[in-house]
């Protein structure tokens, strides 16, 4: 520490200064070069519990806990011989004082050195740090508790996330095995309704035989010509419907289970491929498909293609016949979540009432407009969830719909976001 600029001459007379020093709440202890106490003010008396008369002339070490005493003279000598005029003690470690009754207290101490005619005088200004230490300790404890609680909560949340992911996986496995089990009886229904249809054809041929009485033939014709084919047709339609539902469920469970190979994805290329595949549909609907600049993203290329195939397919399927169809794919500005893409159409739009349900399984808004099971957007959302992306929708009935999709721009920061392990 450097000497501070000289103070202006004080208006306080020197004898008053001694008094001021004496009545200060802080303890003031001055020792000579031999560490004998030469000044011990009232503050020091209060802190250490000694009357000044008891300590004057005694070594400074009497005011220290015994364990610090042996090393102390050398430390004092070092300060006395060193360049510093003053120093704060205990900056690096806590220092302690010893009261007259032998108890210890944490002390905040500054020391200073004054050299003059009477030799070197070393002064310690001492403050009892018990209260402060208590607050500090309490603060430290609170901090630790807080940290502990944050750690606990974080662990709890991570655990809950893991359990949710497991639950999701369990559900998907369940859906998978149920749909799989449903398929087996369905194969029989389908196969044997086909068999019935074939038998019916043969039976019809047999009934053409002249040897069968005409009235029997007429009655049988009603059965084999109308009632039975109708029954078979209904069974087969039901089987087809069931089969589609089961396939849709399997697709959904597969969307959650299939292993992804994350890598940089050329989204522009993906969308071009999707648009090419839908070219016939677009031509048939006389719709224009415009593709803007699309930056690359990070994900599984097949999964990303599924997302855009679904969104573009929907856009083309649900156009409004009242105006020429237009579908636009573009990119928004990158946000915190990564890349933003949109698929915009000027189609039928989605009423607010349906908005909440549109990502749920088996929800169809325009069942008359296109074939499907109402599984597309459910699968899209599940895929994006797994890719670390999002989807949201803006729509106005009779004006059109825009889907906004976000995808990560790069691989996830493993430390920050430990994704579910496959």
């Amino acid at each position, binding site marked *: 520490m450097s000497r501070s600029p000289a103070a202006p001459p004080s208006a306080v007379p020197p004898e008053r200064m001694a008094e001021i020093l004496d009545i200060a709440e802080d303890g003031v202890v001055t020792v000579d070069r031999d560490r004998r106490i030469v000044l011990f003010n009232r503050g020091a008396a209060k802190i250490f519990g000694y009357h000044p008369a008891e300590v004057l002339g005694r070594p400074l070490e009497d005011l220290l806990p015994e364990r610090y005493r042996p090393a102390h003279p050398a430390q004092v000598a070092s300060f006395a011989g060193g360049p510093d005029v003053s120093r704060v003690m205990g900056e690096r470690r806590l220092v302690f004082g010893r009261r007259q009754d032998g108890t210890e207290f944490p002390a905040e101490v500054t020391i200073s050195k004054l050299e003059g005619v009477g030799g070197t005088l070393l002064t310690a200004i001492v403050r009892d740090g018990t209260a402060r230490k208590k607050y500090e300790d309490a603060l430290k404890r609170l901090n630790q508790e807080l940290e502990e609680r944050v750690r606990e909560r974080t662990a709890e949340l991570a655990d809950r996330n893991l359990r949710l992911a497991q639950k999701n996986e369990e559900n998907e496995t369940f859906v998978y095995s149920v749909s*799989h089990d449903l*398929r*087996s*009886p*369905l*194969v*029989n229904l*389908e*196969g*044997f309704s086909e*068999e019935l249809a074939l038998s019916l054809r043969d039976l019809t041929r047999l009934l053409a035989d002249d040897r069968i009485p005409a009235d029997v033939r007429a009655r049988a014709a009603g059965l084999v010509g109308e009632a039975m084919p109708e029954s078979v047709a209904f069974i087969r339609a039901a089987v087809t419907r069931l*089969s589609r539902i089961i396939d849709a469920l*399997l697709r959904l469970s*597969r969307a959650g289970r*299939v292993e992804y190979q994350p890598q940089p994805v050329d989204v522009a290329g993906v969308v071009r491929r999707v648009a090419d595949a839908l070219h016939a549909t677009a031509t048939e609907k006389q719709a224009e498909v415009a593709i803007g600049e699309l930056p690359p993203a990070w994900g599984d290329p097949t999964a990303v293609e599924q997302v855009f195939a679904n969104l573009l397919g929907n856009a083309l399927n649900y156009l409004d016949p009242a105006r020429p169809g237009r579908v636009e794919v573009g990119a928004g500005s990158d946000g915190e979540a990564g890349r933003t893409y949109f698929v915009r159409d000027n189609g039928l739009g989605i009423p607010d009432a349906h908005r909440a349900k549109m990502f749920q399984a088996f929800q169809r808004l325009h069942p008359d407009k296109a074939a499907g099971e109402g599984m597309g957007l459910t699968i899209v959302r599940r895929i994006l969830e797994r890719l670390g992306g999002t989807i949201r929708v803006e729509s106005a009935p009779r004006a059109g719909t825009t889907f906004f999709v976000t995808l990560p721009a790069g691989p996830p920061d493993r430390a920050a976001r430990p994704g579910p392990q496959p």
Partner: protein
Amino acid sequence: MTPAMRIEHLVILLAEDDDGHASLIRRNLKRAGFVNEIVRVRDGQEALDYVRGEGAFAARPPDAPLLLLLDINMPKVDGVGVLKAIKAEPKLARLPVIMLTTTDDPREVDRCYGLGCSVYITKPVQYQDFVDALTRLGMFLEIIQVPGREPT
């Protein structure tokens, strides 16, 4: 086996636990003109017993040319288990195996081809595809069973 082996002499071993499926397969094979003997077993263990000529099938004529139609989901030993066991036995490893199953899960399909099945067919069976596959396999059999021309 004799070099003059033809598809008509082939015994089709159908391992299928679902009676309905088994019946549908029989009917369709017959309708497609296959006159082959069809032996039906209900689980993978019976299938293995048959191909090894063990257990209930100890009396079957040895070396009858065989084609296996294996359902994947079967009690005791499943179809994949049978496929694995057959491919692990040098004497049986060359038997043609058609896997028949209700799942078209790509991983399952890959697994079966990886284990060496000849054809994988998903139920509900498109019977024309099925018949085409069988016919192709029949021709394949004629080729590989000519001595001295076995592929290395």
